[in-house]
């Protein structure tokens, strides 16, 4: 349902007094090692290289990934402090230079 409307999913909510952020990105995360059965050639490597997570514009988490992260990557992290209404922004860039971002407020 949510996936039909939005490509990516994010959920940020208070859990036992602390914010928890869960993120699901749609991305093929191709390793470059797979063979295309139709052409017989290798499927080109295509993966998210870098991801940045911000809490109220302050950077709290940076990830550098290679092609070994799962297809449609999932990431969950927890903040030590925060409150409802705080803004969580996540942006990422893949090895072809495509940038995307998603933003939500802590519930």
């Amino acid at each position, binding site marked *: 349902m949510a996936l039909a409307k939005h490509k990516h999913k994010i959920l940020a909510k208070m859990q036992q007094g602390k914010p928890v952020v869960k993120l699901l990105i749609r991305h093929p995360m191709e390793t470059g*090692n797979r063979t295309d059965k139709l052409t017989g050639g290798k499927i080109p490597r295509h993966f998210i*290289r870098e991801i940045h997570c911000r809490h109220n514009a*302050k950077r709290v988490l940076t990830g*550098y990934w290679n092609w*070994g*992260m799962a297809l449609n990557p*999932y990431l*969950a992290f927890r903040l030590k402090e925060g409150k409802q209404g705080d803004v969580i922004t996540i942006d990422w860039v893949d090895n072809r230079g495509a940038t995307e971002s998603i933003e939500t407020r802590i519930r």
Partner: protein
Amino acid sequence: MQRRIFLKTSLAAAEYTLLLNAGLLTPRMVLADWPADAFHAGSLDEAMLALAGGQPVVESDDIELDVPSIVEDGRSVPVSVRSHYEGTDTISLFSEKNPNPAVGTFALDPALEPRLDTRIKMGGSGFVIALVGAKGKFYRTSKRARVTSGGCA
């Protein structure tokens, strides 16, 4: 098995330190950029050495690493890491049997709990390793997982 990996890593670390001292390599500061050397490394030891910046890596019980012991689909394996080290600022993940074992590395601000959940690919049955950096020191823990269908074919 784990001890052997550790010993090999320690020896390699000693060599790396020699190179550092000789000024042949510059230590990378805490993850300023995509770590190409680690991510393209074809062996676990090499990848880990690169992400630990040449520092020795200590086997540790103070990192909780959760990986299912039997993995049905190696393309998406849930991994959960929780460090008990104060000042944890990096968490890196490896899958022993991947063509390039380093999978990802995270730089954590002190505002974060030293805990991450994610999913990785496993190219075959073997160890998943979490490497934690805290205050310039590096610690690791490993979990073995049996994969019934690979993710890097």
